[in-house]
């Protein structure tokens, strides 16, 4: 569904991603893990054409997008949704209008049909009754969930999540995780999930890719990653536990 071939990305001569080759299969959940600043968000932004690679090809649903014009990209993007790391809600619009945005711009649905879909999506993220609020009246975690509702309102085939559960409590995290899985199971959505929560990654992912120093250190299913012999991967998985022990001693 998404395929990156020999992708390099530089910002001002600084190499952020080096020779990335990665395929996201149709209907799978791929988790991307890696340290802060390792280029995970950059990778997602490349996949949806917000950034253009310095070199290499990016295929989405059978089209090479790295050199497309914006209007051609828009056709591809109609099949995609994205949850931004910092939510990126339209702060001049109510929550309801945010979620309805794609439907209003790109479909001829009546207001009552749109309203029904908005309610449905808000219910999925446990925020029914919030449609008249403005984004700046919400907590960070609530914004994140609205951003998720907005991304899936259009019922895209591919959803890119940039840390969907950052800033959420454990119960809400579990809820979002099960939402991602049910979108996959019920609607066959292909998902790429950037996450820091190893628990989440293990729970939802079909495969996990680890980025380290601009390269994909390892990619494999949950077992592969858990039993990885690569010290970088092991450190990343166990790092948090080790740290907690240190602090509590």
């Amino acid at each position, binding site marked *: 569904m998404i395929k990156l071939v020999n992708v390099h990305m530089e910002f001002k001569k600084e190499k952020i991603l080096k020779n990335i080759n990665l395929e996201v299969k149709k209907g799978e959940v791929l988790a991307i893990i890696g340290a802060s600043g390792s280029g995970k968000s950059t990778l997602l932004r490349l996949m949806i054409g917000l950034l253009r690679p310095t070199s290499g090809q990016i295929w989405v649903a059978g089209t090479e997008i790295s050199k497309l014009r914006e209007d051609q990209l*828009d056709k591809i993007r109609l099949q995609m949704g*994205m949850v931004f790391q910092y939510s*990126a*809600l339209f702060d001049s619009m109510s929550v309801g209008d945010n979620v309805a945005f*794609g439907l209003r*711009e790109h479909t001829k649905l009546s207001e009552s049909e749109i309203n029904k879909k908005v309610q449905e999506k808000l219910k999925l993220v446990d925020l029914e009754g919030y449609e008249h609020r403005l984004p700046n009246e919400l907590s960070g975690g609530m914004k994140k969930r609205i951003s998720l509702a907005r991304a899936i309102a*259009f019922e895209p085939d591919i959803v890119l999540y940039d840390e969907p559960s950052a800033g959420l409590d454990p119960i809400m995290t579990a809820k979002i995780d099960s939402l991602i899985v049910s979108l996959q199971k019920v609607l066959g959505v292909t998902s790429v999930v950037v996450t820091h929560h190893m628990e989440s990654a293990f729970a939802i992912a079909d495969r996990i890719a680890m980025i380290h120093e601009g390269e994909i250190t390892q990619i494999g299913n949950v077992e592969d990653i858990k039993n990885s012999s690569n010290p970088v991967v092991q450190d990343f998985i166990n790092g948090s536990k080790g740290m907690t022990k240190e602090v509590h001693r």
Partner: protein
Amino acid sequence: MMVGYLEKIGRSVLSFFENFGAVMMLIYETICQLKHPPNIKHIIVQMSHLGVDSLPIVTLTILFTGMVITLQTAHEFIKYGAQSTVGGIVAISMARELAPVLTGVVAAGRVGAAITAEISTMKVTEQIDALKVMATNPVGYLVVPRLIACMITLPLLVVFADVIGTFGGYLVATFYSGINSVTYMQSINNFMVVHDVTGGVIKSVFFGAIIAIIGCYQGLNARNGAVGVGKATTGSVVSSIIIIFILNCFLSLILYR
């Protein structure tokens, strides 16, 4: 020392042409986006913003300008026994130059700044990216309605300003300078032609376009968080005002040959 200075000049000339090119690109893109029917609702919302935002300050600025202009002309002209020309002079200078330019400047400060602040905030908080991700062209969605709204609203404001400015002149002429109110009105009637007003209105269509395009350009190219928003906003106001003054001179040359 000398080299450093030359380098500085070179760099600012380069950045001028870079910006000029980028603004032209934005204008081109905006025209391309016009092939999709623009969202009437957005245009109306923007127009009401614009009008409501600038009406009070335009009224104040122009009213007092009309008053002082009359004060000065009347004072001099009465000396030479030419009080019958005062009304005409005030009305014509209002319609041709003062109303369009002052309204343009005030709108650049009020409306241009607001446009840039809004769009640059959207830029630095990734809302522009969110628009793109939802297959919505930011130029079509944000720039087109603002451009059209400015190009419609500014001329309306200018016509309003013509009236207010001339009225300010009337107040001073009759109550302070002792010119007969009939003389003042008669003078306007004698000297002023329709083209005095239409010329000014035509100018203001261009000024509206400049305010919108520069405002959006600065907003869309903002960087670096809150600092970037502030920088973009002042940049937008300053460059719109400069361009308005320069363009006004050229337009006057063309329109009032």
